[in-house]
């Protein structure tokens, strides 16, 4: 992982618009910047465009208009063959996990390392360590179909962070787990953030946002975004 000075923008959107096909714009004039080492919530009602915004951020889509600067690279001017190198610096926890059902938990987590050509000996060393850290030491050989929702979520998170990304994007990572596990996952993200990873957690779980009210949030509604800084300390829900 490349260490960036905290505060330098890791991602910047300038007047970004997005439409699917000939449909209406789902994102309109979205502009914001995330400093390196920051931790943001991305909030908004269902259908507001949270997932579309995340997809733009993890390079799953190209904007219809506007400019996206990621790791100091203007995506519009970046050659297609250069994009995988940028994607490897981003960890993504998909809303529906998107684990590969035919692979074991270990192989799912090892995937980002394998696409980078990391040696099997390294993979056999680091992946079990990480799975132990997320409490799945006894599920290394388990297929996703045999895992509970919470376990799948932890495998998905482990896959997102195994490559020690500069930017971690999580789409509703606590949507399928109980409060206890949701809190544990958030603490895990905070630990990663302390290690330098910039984190964006998309959620519509208002309770969770209030519990971590010290974190700033990007709020999206009707395709436009607003940035809310942390609320006064007295409003923070313990």
């Amino acid at each position: 992982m490349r260490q960036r000075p905290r505060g330098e923008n890791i991602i910047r959107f300038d007047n970004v618009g997005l439409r699917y096909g000939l449909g209406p714009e789902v994102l309109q004039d979205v502009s914001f910047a995330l400093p390196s080492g920051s931790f943001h919530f991305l909030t908004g009602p269902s259908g507001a465009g949270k997932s579309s915004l995340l997809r733009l951020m993890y390079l799953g889509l190209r904007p219809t208009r506007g400019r996206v600067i990621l790791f100091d690279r203007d995506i519009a001017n970046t050659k297609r063959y250069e994009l995988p190198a940028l994607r490897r610096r981003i960890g993504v926890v998909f809303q529906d996990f998107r684990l590969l059902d035919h692979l074991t938990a270990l192989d799912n987590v090892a995937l980002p390392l394998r696409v980078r050509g990391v040696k099997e000996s390294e993979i056999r060393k680091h992946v079990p360590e990480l799975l132990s850290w997320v409490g799945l030491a006894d599920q290394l050989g388990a297929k996703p179909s045999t895992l509970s929702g919470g376990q799948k979520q932890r495998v998905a998170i482990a896959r997102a962070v195994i490559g020690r990304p500069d930017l971690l994007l999580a789409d509703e990572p606590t949507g399928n787990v109980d409060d206890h596990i949701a809190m544990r996952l958030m603490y895990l993200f905070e630990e990663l953030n302390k290690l330098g990873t910039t984190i964006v957690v998309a959620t519509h779980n208002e309770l969770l946002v209030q519990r971590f009210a010290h974190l700033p949030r990007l709020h999206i509604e009707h395709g436009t975004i607003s940035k809310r800084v942390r609320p006064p300390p007295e409003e923070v829900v313990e």
Partner: protein
Amino acid sequence: MNLFRRRSDLPLAGDATSRFLPWLVALMVFLAAIAVAGAFVINNVIDRWDHDVSGTLTVQILPAGGAQAEAATDDRVRLAIDVMRKVPGVQSVKALDKKRTLALLEPWLGGTDVLQDMPLPRLIDVAVDPAARIDLAEVAERLSQAVPGASLDDHRVWLSRLINLSRTIQWLAILVVALIGAVTAATVVYGTRTGMAVHHGIVEVLHLIGAHDDYIARQFADRAFAMGFSGGLMGLGLALPALTLIGWAARRLEGGFLPSLSLPLLGYVAIGLLPLLAAALAMLTARLTVHGTLSRMP
């Protein structure tokens, strides 16, 4: 081979393509083997005809009429031999005696007893240096003027039509092999696109976690190679007994007219390479197809 052991992130082994593609390649390799064998055998036959004919000419003398017909015909033969011996490039001139002529006619006209008293044309076999540039039209003209009833046959007139026909069949065989290759490639394109559609979710995950296009393409290509090679071996396994059977049947047909219908060593090598070529074609096609499809992803 390492390709067969390389791990895959995609569960391609269970796809419908994995079931039908090897059999389709087997059929294609079988047909290609027959076509390739045909092309090589025909080429061999053409070479043999060409070689046999390029060094020989035949002079035909019509039998003379009258009371001393036999003696007059013999005189014509001697005269024709003299004319031909003076032609530069002629190596030997030899008249076929009546017995030999009758033997040549026997396959077509049956027993020689009835032919004994018939006036038969006489043949003179002329061996020429294949490298010599003989003006055959001029020699034929000189011969017909010097010897009544003499004509020169350089075999090429009738043989060239046969060779043309053989060459056409040979090109047809090559076209058949090319078509077989095209059909195989089209099937691989279809199978690969289907595989990509079936596993779109996995392909997208690999893409989004930073896999290069070639990392994904290689997995489809490896699978296509393995299926192509196993199918090719099956096709070869079917083609070899079939070719042996055809060869056996052809040997029974062989007569003086047809040269030996044997497959040259190069033909065996070409047919032996077909499974590998089919596998390589499948691999390359799959790879290009995946690259083409992925290039439409962001």
